[in-house]
């Protein structure tokens, strides 16, 4: 027995509400972030990830208030991402109660941000999110919520991020996200096997067996899912029970 594989519910937050889109578009309201966080914590979620998808900068401070409120009530690790552009943004989120901050587009535009933030606050709290899309010889990194191609190879980018000081990689398959057809297992495995830091698989979970596949076939250290939990298809506890039945070590 040893380290458990983690289940991480993801909450996309905009204007103070949790929403869920399909292939990065078409948002549906899924509830109050504090209430949902508390429920997931009680069900045995190993961590929570919040992605602030608020488009305008006017409402950026809303996420800080939400994190403050969640951090005072839910005592598990909290990761927050979305719109992180400067070391100062990292500081504000950590001070609000985030344990880790996730950087996506800005890491591509300014890799120094990853290094500076890791130097200042430690690698353990710097997660870099990669949105990857299958191309002819591998997977290409996309930014700006999946709208902009970078020409960069995902596996090479992941290795670079590790050398810059990223402590964890949140890997989302754009092809699979919202499809409920399961993770891109080849992508997950390629990245997880290429780096020493933990990799969180994301994008495509539609049933509990997909979670098992992400760990066993994708070699992921953690699995992230949103819709299967938000709409009550499955509880976190059911997911963990299923994973345990399939020989995966989980925290029950």
């Amino acid at each position, binding site marked *: *027995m*040893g*380290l*458990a*594989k*983690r289940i991480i519910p993801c909450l996309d937050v905009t204007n103070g509400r949790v929403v869920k889109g399909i292939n990065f578009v078409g948002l549906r309201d899924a509830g109050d972030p504090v209430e949902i966080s508390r429920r997931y*914590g009680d069900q045995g979620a*190993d961590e929570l990830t919040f992605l602030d998808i608020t488009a305008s900068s006017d409402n950026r401070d809303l996420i800080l208030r939400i994190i403050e409120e969640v*951090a*005072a009530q839910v*005592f*598990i*690790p909290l990761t927050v991402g979305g719109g992180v552009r400067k070391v100062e943004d990292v500081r504000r989120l*950590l*001070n*609000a*109660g*985030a*344990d880790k901050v996730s950087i996506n587009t800005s890491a591509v535009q300014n890799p120094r941000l990853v290094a500076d933030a890791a130097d*200042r*606050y*430690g*690698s*353990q*709290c710097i997660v870099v999110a990669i949105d990857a899309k299958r191309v002819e010889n591998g997977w290409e990194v996309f930014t700006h919520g999946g709208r902009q191609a970078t020409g960069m190879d995902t596996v090479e980018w992941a290795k670079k991020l590790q050398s810059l000081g990223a*402590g*964890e990689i949140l890997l989302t398959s754009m092809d699979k996200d919202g499809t409920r057809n399961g993770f891109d297992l080849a992508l997950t495995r390629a990245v997880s*096997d290429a780096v*020493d*830091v*933990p990799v969180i698989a994301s994008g495509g979970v539609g049933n509990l067996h997909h979670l098992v596949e992400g760990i066993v076939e994708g*070699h992921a*250290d*953690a699995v992230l899912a949103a819709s299967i939990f938000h709409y009550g298809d499955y509880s976190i506890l059911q997911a963990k029970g299923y994973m345990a039945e399939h020989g995966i070590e989980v*925290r029950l």
Partner: protein
Amino acid sequence: MTDIAIVDYGMGNLRSVSKALEHVAPTASIVITDDPEVVRKAGRVVVPGQGAMPDCLRELDKRGLRSAVRYAAMSKPFLGICIGLQMLCDSSEEGNVEGLGIVTGTVRRFPSTSVADSSGLRFKVPHMGWNQVHQAIEHPLWKDIPSDARFYFVHSYYVETANPESTAATTNYPFSFTSAVAKDNIFAVQFHPEKSHDAGLTLLNNFVRWEPFQFQEGIVKSTRDLFPIQT
């Protein structure tokens, strides 16, 4: 008087620790402080910490907190968390620095090369997530917590204790390392109780009620002899 002082040496998020302590001790006066006098006068002291140990020690010194932390570690219920455990040791491989020398031991890095388990899965560094904490001794801080309960870890360095008697718990990753240390009025853990849900809150609840001196008066005297206060 401050009931619980959380020592702030400028290395990141102390809010989680503070919120979790407020949750288990709603009527206590809990302050996050970088004032050595507040630390010296507090009833209990918590030293959290994240980031790199050399930076933590430098920031501690910059604020004149080193002797106050040493004083607290000798004289009051003291809880070290993560780097707050590591800095109590003699030395660390991280930046080859000396620690406070209160716990006999060395801080070492997990081997980052591809150590694999029997199924070929690699042990990633940092050691991040929920792992089992195997209790090596009986202790008031373990009250109502089953041995092998899972706590949340995130670290790349671990404590190798030279004195096994101070080991309060061990954890496997992939080898057995010291995940908690107990010595007189000191309890220090590698994991994060403030992020470990029910098990973590139980440990913090035990800490805020812990009275190590009621039954250990003789030991306090010897601790003072071993570690004379430096000012």
